[in-house]
């Protein structure tokens, strides 16, 4: 139950932030599906997960310069790095958005988000059972 990122909900609270960021990135790609020279972006979940769960020392974001605020394991959704999507086929206008791929990614992302929500809900139920002794 105790996780480096969140004492109550483990890695799921942070995962929720990552799925949100990913939904945002894919929404961007879909909104810019007809913009010339737009390059599609996405979150590399494996990389973010490795950063979040792999090592306690990696969890806190480094503060490159003194005086810069560092985040202490909260869910800094704005700081999740985005990667460039590798296009399946080139297009004349330099746009790398493949609408079908983005739609599939968005649908998968929604399912993942709901899965994280389910995990958190189960955790809340468990805590509630522990508090009430199963009577509530």
């Amino acid at each position: 139950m105790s996780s480096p990122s969140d004492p109550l909900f483990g890695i799921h609270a942070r995962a929720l932030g990552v799925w949100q960021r990913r939904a945002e990135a894919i929404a961007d790609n879909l909104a810019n599906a007809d913009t010339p020279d737009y390059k599609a972006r996405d979150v590399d979940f494996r990389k973010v997960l490795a950063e979040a769960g792999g090592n306690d020392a990696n969890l806190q974001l480094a503060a490159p310069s003194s005086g810069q605020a560092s985040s202490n394991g909260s869910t800094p959704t704005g700081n999740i790095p985005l990667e460039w999507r590798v296009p399946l086929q080139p297009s004349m206008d330099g746009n790398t958005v493949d609408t079908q791929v983005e739609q599939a990614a968005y649908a998968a992302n929604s399912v993942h988000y709901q899965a994280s929500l389910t995990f958190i809900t189960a955790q809340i139920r468990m805590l509630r059972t522990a508090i009430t002794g199963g009577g509530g």
Partner: protein
Amino acid sequence: MSMFKVFDIAGSGMAAQSLRLNTTASNLANANSVASSPEEAYRAREPLFAAVHAAMAGEVGTASEAAVGVRVTGVTESQAAIPSHYEPGNPMADANGYVYGSNVNPIDELVNMISASRSYQNDVEVMNSAKQLMLKTLDLGK
């Protein structure tokens, strides 16, 4: 909560695509317009899309190079040649009996229309999914 941003992004996409549908409607409506000179002839209008970046939107952060929607930078006029027809009986004809039509290509416009409406539908779906996810988040723990 950053999920709210999805609404802004999808909203900007819908605004851009509806403007594109508007220009398509204007072009198709004027496909058979005639004029007395090439300068006055109707030219097909095309919107220009550009990605809005977080840095441009006034947000500071490490992810500032990421886009936060789409905007229409302007509407251009097609530079395709204006067709001329010899119609001396037409009241719009010039001194030599020529009228000048529009350079609208109806096939291009129909393709544009389908593309714009599909993109609009995509944005609507994105917004609906985000709304459902947010509602489920509100129900957390119930």
